[in-house]
């Protein structure tokens, strides 16, 4: 139990920043550049760690609560989700709801810390963030409903159990394909990637997540970036397990398979970012509502 816990956390803490490196590398290859080294995210974190803070006189303690919650929540949430075939350290009936609501808690404090600066740009980002996640949250729940229908429990561990392999071959395969697409879109919007948000833009007016952390600096910014990387890996774990439901039976090969799946996901995100432009803001809700309809259709397919 304790060993599993340590393995789980070690995989998460060590590998999470790598995903961003893979995405950047993929985009660089598409652009015909050499690009930053794969470990660039680690260097960035180390550099931010050594820097000092800059605080606006408008801010209060809530400004620092955002990074703290943003780092702690993915850590706790990761305990509930299996990493590939490695089981979740903590698993109980109904933990899927807790998983969703933990991320809502982190959103609450990220948005509050953005509003704490009193800057209208951060207000814009905050308003967009809460609006889009309102539309993405029902989709995530529909996806979990489909998975719960196919399994015989209500914990993430049983939802993502070994029965998925047979489910892919059964009538439910079409549903699983649909929710895989939905989950990928939810992952993109929750982790502020193109086509919903552009993490590299230099125009505050168009940003969502990046503009909310505009005034953070030093270790606090490092915590936000690290927390975002953890969040991407934890949410990615959901998708990877669904797409690669095999298990080898030996923990090392299971872990390697899981990491390979995550790397593949990062490459996929990089490809999407390279070949697509960011959507106009009024289009984003339409895409999200479309995704929700797709997930409802998937649920109808398994409920009938």
């Amino acid at each position, binding site marked *: 139990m304790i060993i599993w816990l340590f393995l789980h956390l070690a995989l998460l803490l060590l590998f999470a920043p790598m995903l961003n490196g893979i995405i950047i590398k993929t985009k660089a290859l598409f652009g015909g550049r050499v690009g930053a080294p794969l470990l660039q995210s680690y260097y960035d974190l180390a550099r931010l760690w050594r820097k000092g*803070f*800059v*605080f*606006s*006189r*408008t801010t*209060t303690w*809530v400004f620092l609560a955002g*990074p*703290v919650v943003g*780092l*702690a929540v993915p850590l*706790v949430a990761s*305990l509930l989700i299996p990493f590939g075939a490695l089981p979740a350290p*903590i698993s*109980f*009936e*109904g933990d899927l*709801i*807790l998983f*969703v*609501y*933990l991320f*809502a*808690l982190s*959103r*609450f404090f990220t*948005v*509050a810390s953005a*509003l*704490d*600066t*009193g*800057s*209208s740009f951060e*207000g814009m980002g*905050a*308003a*967009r963030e*809460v*609006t889009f*996640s*309102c*539309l993405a*949250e*029902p989709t*995530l*729940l*529909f996806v979990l*409903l489909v998975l*719960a*229908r196919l399994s015989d429990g*209500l914990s993430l561990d049983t939802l993502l159990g070994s029965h998925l392999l047979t489910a892919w071959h059964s009538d439910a395969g079409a549903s699983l394909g649909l929710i895989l697409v939905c989950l990928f879109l939810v992952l993109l919007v929750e982790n502020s990637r193109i086509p919903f948000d552009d993490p590299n833009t230099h125009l*505050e007016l168009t940003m969502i997540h990046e503009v909310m952390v*505009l*005034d953070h600096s030093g*270790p*606090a910014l490092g*915590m936000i970036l690290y927390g975002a990387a953890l969040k991407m890996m934890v949410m990615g774990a959901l998708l990877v397990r669904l797409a690669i439901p095999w298990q080898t039976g030996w923990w090392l090969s299971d872990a390697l398979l899981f990491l390979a799946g995550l790397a593949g996901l990062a490459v996929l995100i990089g490809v999407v970012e390279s070949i697509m432009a960011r959507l106009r803001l009024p289009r984003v809700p339409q895409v999200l509502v479309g995704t929700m309809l797709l997930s409802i259709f998937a649920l109808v397919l398994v*409920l009938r």
Partner: protein
Amino acid sequence: MDTGESEMIWLLSGIVLTSFAGVPGLFFSREGSGRERLACTLTLAGTFSGLIAVAMVLSSAGEIRLDLPWSLPGGALALRLDPLAAVFLLPLFLVVAAGSVYGLRYWPQRENPGNGRKLRLFYGLISGAIMLVLTARNGMLFLMAWEVMALAGFFLITTEEHKEEARRAGYIYLIATHTGTLALFALFALLDHTSGSLMFPDAGTLTAAGSGLMFLLGLFGFGMKAGLMPLHIWLPGAHAAAPSHASALLSGVMIKSGIYGLVRFTSFFAEIPAWWGWTLLLLGAISGILGVALAIAQHDIKRLLAYHSVENIGIIALGLGLALLGRSYDQPVLVILGLSGCLLHVVNHGLFKSLLFLSAGSVIHAAGTRDIDQLGGLLKRQPWTGALFLGAAVAISGLPPFNGFISEWLIYLGALQPLKHQNSILGMAVLTVPALALIGGLALACFVKVFGIVFLGEARSEAAVQAHEAPLSMLVPMALLLVACAWIGLLPTTLVPLLRGAVENWAGTDGGTMLGGSFAPLGWVSLIGWLLLALLAAVGLWLSRISRKVPRAIGTWGCGFQFPAPRMQYTASSFADFLVRLFHFGLWSERHGGQVTGLLPGVTRFSSHTPDTVLDRMLFPIFLGAAWLCRLLRACIHNGVIAVYLLYIALTVIVLLALFIL
């Protein structure tokens, strides 16, 4: 079964002490202190005495009862205190006690000589009346207490009767509550007809025959009081107009008497038709989603909180609907999860909503305005009020590790149960899950908006700059409510025996033993809550330690603009604009101005306003139309031509003669 009447004396003295707490003050001059401390002491003694009675019920796991003969027809004067009533009584005691201490400084007699004594009189009276409503087991007694509660509520809302707004809200409330009471009179008459007595029947003793009309009457009468969506018309205005601790009592406790009525009424029946549960699920989803959407569009902090009551009543109705469906389709797990979630949310909403109203009152007391767009930056001037409001905001958004999450989680678990069954009609109930997720997402958006705009950023008006922290006697009652919220969130297993007893009371079964066990492992949730709290504390302490010495000397970066002003910050309206436009189909917000023309535009204005969909958009036009029709009719009949009046007399005589001959 404990039937001792000696325990009942605690409850009775509780009811009497709280009801008449404001009476001694009436005999003293309005210019003095009006014996406000005496009223507060009596209220505290009354709630404490009631608390002892509830503790006795919980420790003996039975019920305490009182039966006295009385001269009115239809049974005896009967009071029962069982776990189901105790669930509703516990938050009542806490909120009433906290509100009465809070009121000492919030509404002191010296500053309000005109209405202070009246406020305390009706505050006590409504508290006692609700206690009686929750324990009465005779239809006649129930209706009497119900009417006292309704009228005392009217006087609380119109405390500031010199204000047009308060009078208007009071009259709308009075019309609404009496329309509801009318339905209840019919309901109890039918119940008397069915069971042969005005005494409440025991759980599960009535047959479903002819119960459809009774359910509709109960849904209308009790739903009107609870504020279910199309019937919520009185709620926003009333909660905004009353003094804050009275709003806390009205919103946290009084509207729950409607839910209590529905829960108690549905417990009478042995079998429950399936359409009852579906109706409640549908109404709950509508209340939840439209309630929170309307809340997002509000600029008045108390009106906003009032719409959140509509939303939370919707969540409670979802839980009750699931429990009813569980009874209809014979799914005991669904009954337990749905009803426990519903009842726990009643307790939770009572706690965090009254805390929100009290801390909003502290803001209004300090800054003198209810307009969110006039406030800002209050966390620096009111650090404790702000922190308490933040706690309550996290709790009401249903986020872990606070209590709102626990009850919503139970309802979620209930809503997930139908997935396991092949019954395809019951399977539709899983749609509760995404509905709850949407409600949760919108509530989060709304509360982060309120907290962010009111407490963070820079002050938007001079009044907000001058604001000061509330005195200790206002902060301590609020802190007590937050502790209760955190308690339920972090130690939910302590409430399992109470909920188990209540579910047994309602369903008449012994299935409640499973709660907290394998299918609803509250222990694990509380473990994750503690883990999260410990991690947050560790990381937070470390970060605050390394950043402590950093000066906060520069302004927020304005993207190169040199002269940022507080007015340039995002306001509540601009924050909500995106969502309000998405929900245009249900809100129909009015937008005026904002159009900019020309290369060098002059001064331009923009305003947005969201009237109530049901009251302002439907009922007022309908009533105005009806009044116009009646006027038209009167103008035709009563037209001042004497010949026509003579014709009326002749016609009447002819008709009477015809009747006489026939």
